[in-house]
């Protein structure tokens, strides 16, 4: 029972990953600051995500932020929850739903930023392989598509989808494919190992989920190819940042999970206090993605560490 | 007039064994045909073919003159053929009534008429000589009682042709008598019965005709007049067995096995004490369910003792694990050889050396292959175990040969005290004789031998002393001179001498 306690807010992720650890720290930091109760839940799959949202509504959460796994098909659950409490989406949007607004990056754009990094790393073109946890979720699809479209110099079209089974190329870049690991790290590393075997002339490996770049680095290290194959990452795992400093990773695109968590809670609290000024006109609060290269890595990492209280 | 049942030229091969070679057989209405043969002769196989459990490789089955071929048990039942299996086959999770009617439950629209089933089951059970509540769980019954349930189950089929494959192997005198009454009734109502048994006394009593198999071949028939112990033995074994029960006059020495104040889980209120001397053979008699097996198992330590002391050669043997009993020189040949006696998937050699393996091992626990092979050779010869080639799984061997493997396993460790629970259950005359000789030889060498048996003849002939159990109690003790069928029966049913 929570009757006479203060307001409580919840953040529902789209899975369990270290990316969300950072968001959790952000949300909890906001909770401490505001003196409110904050819960971060990490479901496995849509079924569990639905159940968690339902249970949170029943529990009487005063505001919920979620990162929907399959936004197009989760409209109902989101609407139901939105009818009961303040609801925003973070990290991944559900534009067709009644969510109040979306807070996060445009994953397609972030993907294109990542693509730019690949172009920088491989100015003369070459073979590129994409590694990702899984492809089903919306942000993954868009992020990957952004990378591909940027490399192939295609127009901006976030709705495009190239099946993972196809080899895509233009005169410079050959995208060999997209390998998923379903969050199994051993698999993730093996995917890179086998790619190195099959394509000794691999130019660049792109790791799109937070744990992918570190696995790519592990694999390169054990193959003695560190520095020979370019690596472009996504998100800010410690190993990735260290890799940038060491010169083994060309760069990474960081979202701002800490901000996702922190600002979600702050905004939900404001809404709960009746302050509607926080609602953006266009329904989108952009927490822009950034490219981190060797020159910016150190400062970024120091800042991150201080935020996480390390 | 053609016979009710006629088998012609039945053939059956298993891998490595030609189990049936062109066997002919026939039975008439109201006739009791005894089917005899040594262990592994092919009796059970023939009957399984007849009951639709297995299919013949060749030959013809005629029921009432009509050629039939049973592809399943259901078809055989349909044709009026029922089989009481040699090994128990009951669903232990169900109650007695459900087992009696298994596969033929009285029902309406698929819904079981439980009340009717229990009522009728009660009647059949009574006929089979078992007066228990039909809603008793089968798992709570002793082996002998389970065999009676099997009998009731077969009776309830109302078969025209009823096959009994060693129905009395776990039954004692009283229950056997009741079965014979049933057989007489069935006979009178025109049922044809095929009766398989290794107790030749019974055969003499009930059979109208005898057919003998040897090594999968039919060796001949005996008609009512020709049936005698000697003639049957000669036909089965191919020679006379002299001195079927070896006579004994060894010296009896000091007590080797002493049991005092023993209480078991089956009868927690009763306590027992007895002792057995070196060179002595003690028989333990009693009705089915009297607690004999339970007593041996508690002495040996496979079952927990509630109280009591067991000493071997004066040394206390703690209960709770057979390993200690073995270390003290005890051996137990269990009643249920398939479950407790043998590792069915393993070969003869592996089974024979199971107990001695650790003793003979190299330092560091490595197995000594030479010792294993020696045990296999020695015991194989001593017990005259017949196999269908090296490496044959014991589960595939005939019942008698399996029993020899179990006994051989224990003899290999050269025990001081040998406990045997129904050692000749399902064993043919030849092998029985060999087992008797073995028991005798052990006693001769100053070992203590205790055996539980439901075969009255055997108990009377082989024991120096008979202990009779009744409902978990030692009801009395008979010396060789006092021993008689009447005396044993009196004590077993709770009476006094």
């Amino acid at each position, binding site marked *: 029972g929570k009757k006479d306690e203060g307001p409580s807010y919840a953040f529902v992720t789209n899975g369990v990953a270290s990316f969300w650890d950072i968001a959790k720290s952000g949300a909890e930091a906001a909770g401490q600051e505001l003196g409110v109760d904050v819960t971060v839940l990490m479901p496995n799959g*849509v079924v569990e995500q639905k*159940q968690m949202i339902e249970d949170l509504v029943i529990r009487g959460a005063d505001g919920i932020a979620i990162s929907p*796994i399959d936004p197009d098909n989760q409209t109902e659950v989101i609407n139901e929850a939105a009818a009961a409490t303040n609801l925003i989406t973070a990290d991944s949007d559900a534009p067709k739903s009644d969510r109040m607004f979306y807070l996060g990056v445009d994953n397609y754009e972030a993907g294109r930023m990542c693509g730019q990094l690949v172009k920088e790393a491989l100015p003369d073109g070459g073979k590129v392989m994409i590694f990702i946890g899984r492809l*089903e979720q919306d942000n993954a699809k868009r992020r990957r598509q952004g990378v591909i479209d940027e490399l192939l110099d295609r127009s901006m079209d976030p709705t495009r989808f190239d099946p993972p089974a196809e080899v895509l190329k233009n005169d410079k870049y050959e995208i060999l494919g997209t390998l998923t690991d379903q969050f199994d790290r051993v698999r993730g590393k093996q995917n890179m190992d086998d790619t190195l075997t099959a394509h000794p002339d691999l130019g660049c490996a792109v790791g799109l989920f937070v744990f992918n770049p570190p696995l790519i680095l592990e694999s390169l290290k054990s193959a003695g190819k560190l520095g020979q194959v370019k690596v472009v990452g996504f998100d800010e795992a410690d190993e990735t940042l260290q890799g940038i400093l060491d010169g083994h990773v060309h760069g990474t695109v960081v979202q701002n999970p800490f901000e996702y968590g922190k600002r979600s809670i702050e905004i939900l609290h404001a809404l709960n206090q009746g302050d509607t000024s926080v609602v953006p006109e266009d329904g989108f609060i952009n927490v822009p993605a950034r490219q981190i290269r060797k020159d910016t890595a150190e400062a970024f990492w120091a800042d991150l560490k201080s935020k996480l209280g390390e | 007039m053609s016979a009710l049942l006629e088998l012609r030229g039945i053939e059956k091969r298993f891998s490595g064994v030609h189990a049936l070679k062109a066997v002919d057989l026939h039975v008439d209405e109201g006739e009791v045909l005894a089917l005899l043969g040594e262990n592994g002769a092919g009796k059970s196989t023939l009957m399984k073919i007849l009951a639709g459990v297995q299919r013949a490789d060749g030959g013809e089955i005629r029921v009432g003159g009509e050629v039939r071929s049973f592809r399943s048990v*259901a078809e055989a039942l349909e044709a009026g053929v029922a089989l009481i299996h040699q090994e128990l086959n009951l669903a232990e999770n169900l109650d007695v009534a459900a087992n009696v009617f298994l596969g033929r439950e009285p029902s309406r629209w698929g819904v*079981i008429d439980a009340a009717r089933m229990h009522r009728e089951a009660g009647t059949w059970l009574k006929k089979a000589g078992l007066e228990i509540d039909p809603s008793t769980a089968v798992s709570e019954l002793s082996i002998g009682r389970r065999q009676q349930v099997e009998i009731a189950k077969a009776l309830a089929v109302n078969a025209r042709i009823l096959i009994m494959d060693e129905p009395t192997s776990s039954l004692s005198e009283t229950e056997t008598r009741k079965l014979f009454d049933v057989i007489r009734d069935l006979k009178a109502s025109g049922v044809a019965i095929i009766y398989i048994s290794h107790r030749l006394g019974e055969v003499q009593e009930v059979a109208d005709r005898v057919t003998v198999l040897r090594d999968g071949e039919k060796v001949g028939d005996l008609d009512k007049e020709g049936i005698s112990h000697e003639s049957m033995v000669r036909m089965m074994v191919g020679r006379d067995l002299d001195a079927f029960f070896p006579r004994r006059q060894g010296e009896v020495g000091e007590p080797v096995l002493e049991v005092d104040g023993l209480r078991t889980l089956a009868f927690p209120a009763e306590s027992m004490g007895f002792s057995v001397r070196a060179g002595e053979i003690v028989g333990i008699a009693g009705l089915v369910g009297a607690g004999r097996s339970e007593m041996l198992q508690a002495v040996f330590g496979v079952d927990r003792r509630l109280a009591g002391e067991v000493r071997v050669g004066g040394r206390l043997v703690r209960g709770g694990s057979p390993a200690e009993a073995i270390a003290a020189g005890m051996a137990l040949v269990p009643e249920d050889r398939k479950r407790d006696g043998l590792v069915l998937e393993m070969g003869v050699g592996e089974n024979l050396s199971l107990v001695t393996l650790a003793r003979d091992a190299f330092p560091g626990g490595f197995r000594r292959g030479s010792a294993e092979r020696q045990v296999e050779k020695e015991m194989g010869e001593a017990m005259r175990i017949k196999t269908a080639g090296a490496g044959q799984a014991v589960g595939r061997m005939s019942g008698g040969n399996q029993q020899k493997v179990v006994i051989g396993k224990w003899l290999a460790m050269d025990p001081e005290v040998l406990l045997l629970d129904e050692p000749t259950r399902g064993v043919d005359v030849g092998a029985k004789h060999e087992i008797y000789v073995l028991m005798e030889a052990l006693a001769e060498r100053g070992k203590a031998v205790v055996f539980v048996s439901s075969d009255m003849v055997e108990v009377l002939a082989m024991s120096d002393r008979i202990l009779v159990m009744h409902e978990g109690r030692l009801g009395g003790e008979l010396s060789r001179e006092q021993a008689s069928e009447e005396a044993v029966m009196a004590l077993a049913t709770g009476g006094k001498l």
Partner: protein
Amino acid sequence: MKKTLGVLMVFVAVCLAAIGLSDVFLSAGNIERLLLRIGLFSILAIGVSFVIVTGGIDLSIGSVVCLVGCGLPWLLVEQGWSVGLTLTVLFLVVGLIGWGHGMLITKLKLQPFVVTLCGLLVYRGLVRGVTGDRSLGFGSEYESLRQLAQGELAPSLLLGVLAVVLAGVAVYGWMKERRFRAGVVASSVAAGLAVLGAVLLRQSEFGVKFPFVILMVVAGLAGVFLNLTVWGRHLLALGNSEEAARFSGIATDRLVIVSYILCALLAGLGGLLIVLDVGSAQPSDFGNFYELYAIAAAVIGGCSLRGGQGAVIGVVVGMALIQVIRNLIVLVIPKYQNLEFAVIGVVILLGVIGDEVFKRLAEKRRRLT
């Protein structure tokens, strides 16, 4: 019955704890959702208990859930098939899968664990390959079909159903085992009253979703089948001793095959209802681990993996227990949500240990009298 009583007691205890710990546990909305979840998942558990009764196991349930759960939106939305055709084809395929398992297990004598483990790998693998591993869903279409999972029954109708079920349970308990009659009747009535109370208290918006109603029907049929019919009896017998059943003239192979078909079909039904409820499915994880939940529920509900023992009511209560625990954790201690599995594991373990200890004590008492 005895075993069912044990899990029922644990369940009641957990529910009481839930009522004490959370003031929204008994709210109409929560009960409604709980019943929905119990409905969805118990269907799987009942399916697997048929197989468990035969002494087998089915590890492919989660993948069959995935097959139907992903196949439905894929065929309807992406391939544009009609609802009728899609359902027919899906359930034919699922039936064939069950039949295939049964055939491999009975005719080729392969081990159920191995056969269905391969099933687990193959069906999900195929779905992933065929659908190209993409997210599938209904968007905002097929609303009428989705009513199958989302529609509600009025409380009055529910009460009727409940009454019938309770009566059935009571009668069954009475017929089956007199010693436990009292306990069963008492606890069924208590459970009934609890639900009734909850309903009356907040009758306002309360409604029972169809999956729970479907579960009631499935459970009722399964209970009758297993406990009262000849085939159920035969299933129990063959689960204990295949030989004993075969030697009694029972067509054991056919029965085993039927039970695998039933299990697959119920898994398919569960998958159908779950995807209709959730509206979206990802081939790579939809239904993941559901077989383990289903098996766990069956086991705490009184089925023995050695075969020959089954109890439909117990299985439903077992699954209800799991669902209430999950619900409770999110309601009361969401911070420790990642301990959820540990809690469920511990409760299951305590349940089976308690059961065993209880059985031993009873045995001892019986022996001493």
